[in-house]
């Protein structure tokens, strides 16, 4: 036998091979320690990322109800069409047939598909009608290149009713304007997420509940609005638009004792269910976002404040100078020449000269204090976006002119809501209450806005102004057209000349006619303010002629309806003008 067989078994070359193999395994073991020990978190994260997908569970926006639980806004489901551009083999054919089915422009769709060839997702049209969705299904396109996804669709079952108050939800479900925006946080809720386990081909294998964020659906909210009163208000505004062809009209119905807004409307308007239509003019809620000088509707506020501060007596005589009164370098006129008028008659006749004399007695500082006390120059705090504060110039800018202008409602401007809120102070016995839309007490959550109540004037002065001069305005003054058989109405007209920026003077032809009224006088339950901006036909254009009849009609229907629903409903039918 060879000598080799007796040598120690593993010789140099064998040892080398064995050492080599063991070395290789050692290196691999070290590599495994690196991957599975040191870098394991990084890879685990990578795996989690590719194995799970997060899917949003959209929150359903809450419903909006009126004060009696009538549905004003709700949410249904609709299907939205998307395509996977990377998988469309025939973009032109697909664009053509899809655009026909959902009524969109085929060239535009073709361009959009072409522009996102590398992406996996493209909305074609969202929230299809049922017919459109069926039409898309009937096309029978290749299944992998398109899909329908269910989305929430905001709907306003009352049509355009209270559109300015409600606002709308945009295509992504975000509240735009009105209550939809103001209470967006409450209404929208919070989207949940679901984590799904998927495989490499994108098939969903499992749902991981333990890590999902639960969806919080939006809360329902109840408004102080009354849909029936609102309907009536809107009919009246439509009639005013037809009769006087004004630029715009608005109306507010307010419960003076609680500050609840029962109705609020503005013309021109828009359709929440079809927000694309219209010229954009209709988007402004003129009740809170159109300012004008309040004019004579401001007068009772000053009188009430002066009476309360005992700067004025109820039966005090004012010489109204037969309609012409020189105040410094300024000549004031009354509409009719009057001799001596009592404090009450200054309001009943709406004498500018009488008011100017009251202004002279108070002085600028007190006038400013009074205007501020009634909420002029600052927002009312209603829960609506876009509210304007009007203008109340700072006292140092006031001049001798102001002594005559301010008491008759010039040199300051306000929104209709500010005016009606100020009048609510008179109607409720002297308290300023934040006007609001959110019906507190109906929600489990506390009211999101604080309703502030503060005393402005004493009850005595407020009640007297309402029950004596303002009642007489309707009985024998400028507001006779607002008289009602069933109720004792109090009110005040306002006719403001619009300031003409071109000439730098007050216009003699362009007016803002307003009328604020309430009833019953001994216990006012509702206040109505109707503002007609620039009536263009008919005449004469006074608050008492243009706005008063509509305001009184609104007041009557609303009060009747509140007293007895059934009687109102019958009455309501024949009261609705044919449109």
């Amino acid at each position: 036998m060879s000598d080799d067989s007796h040598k120690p078994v593993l010789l140099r070359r064998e040892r080398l091979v064995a050492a080599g193999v063991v070395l290789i395994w050692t290196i691999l073991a070290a590599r495994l320690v690196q991957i599975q020990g040191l870098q394991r978190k990084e890879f685990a994260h990578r795996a989690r990322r590719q194995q799970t997908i997060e899917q949003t569970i959209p929150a359903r926006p809450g419903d909006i109800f009126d004060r009696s639980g009538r549905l004003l806004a709700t949410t249904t489901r609709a299907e939205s069409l998307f395509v996977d551009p990377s998988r469309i083999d025939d973009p032109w054919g697909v664009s053509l047939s899809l655009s026909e089915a959902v009524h969109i422009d085929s060239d535009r769709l073709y361009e959009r598909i072409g522009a996102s060839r590398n992406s996996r997702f493209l909305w074609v049209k969202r929230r299809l009608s049922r017919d459109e969705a069926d039409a898309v299904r009937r096309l029978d396109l290749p299944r992998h290149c398109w899909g329908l996804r269910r989305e929430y669709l905001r709907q306003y079952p009352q049509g355009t009713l209270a559109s300015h108050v409600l606002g709308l939800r945009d295509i992504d479900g975000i509240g735009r304007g009105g209550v939809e925006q103001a209470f967006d946080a409450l209404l929208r809720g919070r989207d949940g997420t679901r984590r799904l386990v998927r495989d490499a081909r994108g098939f969903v294998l499992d749902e991981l509940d333990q890590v999902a964020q639960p969806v919080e659906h939006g809360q329902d909210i109840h408004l102080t609005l009354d849909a029936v009163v609102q309907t009536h208000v809107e009919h009246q505004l439509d009639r005013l638009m037809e009769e006087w062809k004004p630029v715009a009209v608005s109306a507010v119905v307010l419960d003076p004792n609680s500050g609840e807004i029962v109705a609020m409307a503005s013309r021109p308007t828009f359709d929440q269910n079809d927000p694309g239509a219209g010229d954009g003019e209709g988007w402004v809620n003129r009740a809170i976002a159109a300012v004008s000088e309040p004019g004579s509707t401001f007068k009772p506020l000053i009188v009430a404040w002066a009476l309360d501060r005992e700067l004025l007596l109820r039966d005090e005589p004012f010489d109204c100078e037969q309609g012409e009164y020189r105040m410094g370098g300024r000549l004031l006129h009354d509409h009719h020449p009057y001799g001596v008028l009592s404090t009450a008659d200054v309001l009943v006749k709406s004498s500018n000269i009488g008011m100017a004399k009251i202004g002279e007695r108070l002085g600028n500082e007190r006038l400013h204090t009074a205007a501020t006390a009634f909420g002029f120059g600052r927002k009312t705090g209603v829960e609506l976006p876009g509210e304007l504060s009007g203008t109340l110039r700072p006292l140092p800018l006031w001049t001798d002119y102001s002594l005559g202008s301010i008491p008759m409602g010039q040199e300051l401007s306000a929104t209709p809501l500010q005016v009606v809120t100020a009048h609510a102070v008179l109607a409720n016995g002297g308290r300023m209450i934040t006007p609001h839309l959110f019906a507190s007490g109906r929600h489990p959550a506390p009211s999101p806005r604080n309703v502030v109540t503060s005393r402005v004037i004493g009850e005595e002065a407020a009640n007297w102004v309402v029950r004596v001069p303002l009642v007489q305005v309707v009985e024998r003054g400028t507001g006779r057209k607002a008289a009602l058989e069933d109720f004792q109405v109090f009110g005040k007209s306002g006719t403001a000349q619009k300031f003409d920026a071109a000439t730098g003077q007050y216009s003699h032809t362009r007016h803002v006619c307003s009328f604020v009224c309430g009833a019953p006088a001994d216990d006012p339950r509702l206040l109505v303010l109707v503002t007609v901006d620039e009536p263009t036909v008919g005449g004469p254009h006074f608050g008492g002629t243009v706005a008063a009849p509509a305001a009184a009609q609104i007041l009557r229907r609303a009060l009747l309806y509140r007293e007895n629903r059934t009687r109102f409903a019958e009455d309501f039918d024949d009261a609705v003008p044919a449109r």
Partner: protein
Amino acid sequence: MQHSLLRNSFLSLIGVLLGMGLLMVYSASITARPTEFEQVYLSRHLTFLSGGVCVGLTAAFLPSRFWRWAAPWLFGLTLILLAIVLVPGIGHRVNGAQRWLRFGSISMQPSEIAKVTLPLLVCWWLTPRRNAPDEIRSRFRSWLTRFAVIVPIGLTLGLIVVEPDLGTAAFLGGIAGIALFLSRWPIRNFVISTLAVAPLATTALVLRPYQWQRIQGFLTAWRDIDLAPYQVRQSLTTLGVGGIHGVGLGSGWQKLSFLPEANTDFVFAVLGEELGLIGTLGLIALWTALFLLGLRLLAVQPVRSFEFTAGATLLTQVVLQAALNVAVVTAMVPPKGIAHPLISYGGSSLVVTLAALGIVVSMSRRDTAALTEIGPPAGD
């Protein structure tokens, strides 16, 4: 006594590896949606396993002198199969490479068989026959004869390169090199052949730019894993998910769809995810133990004998193939489709591996016939 204990341990290790393979093939074949794939794969794997065990046992019971006698014939047969696979219409083409022969439902790669027959041939060529007269022994020592062994090696590798299957050719080249090395091939011959092959390999890289791209891609993957080929990314991720303890047998997610070839070439990654670092290092320990025990087992043979060199080469071949698979899965070498011996699902690979290990056992047996000099087996 000592020897039979060694052999029993060696066989037990093979059994443990086969058991692990069985588990992993079953687990890695589970699909995302409920199907019967895992049962189908398991039963097929069991079929191959029983076939492989029969082949392996037969190989182990055959005396080593049979293998010595059969080495050239088996090699010749392999060459014929390697040639046949290239004939259009007979060889089966998968992904542009003609590597497969199909017999009914069974398919096999002739290059797999070459992993056994080429080392046998090299050792047969270079080791002196026992009991041979001195002049014959000296003939075997003549330089030219010894150098001529590169002709059959070159022929085999050439046929495999043409398929093309560069990875397997390179692996076989390495195994042949180990066989040459253990057969005391002179170092200067290695130097000469390396010098001869180097320009060839360079030309191949230039002529087949896609190979070069693969290597470049591999190098970029080291810098940024996001640039790595999909399967490398997935196999590393799969291993990493397992961490130290693993997610539990059968509970792996990656195999469900993200990891390609989960039950064949990347079964090691599945094992890594489900059994963790403990499982992967355990498997490495098993292979190392198998390797060292096998060498001890073969140590009863004279170091320069056919039995020792052939047995050691085949053993190294199997263990290195496992190491190469792990290296691919851990992105230590460029991606190459290679099964993990005994662990991967795979018909012909499993049978060939068991045959190779069977031959190792056969080689480790003291050939009583030879020792008592009853005579050479027929044909030798």
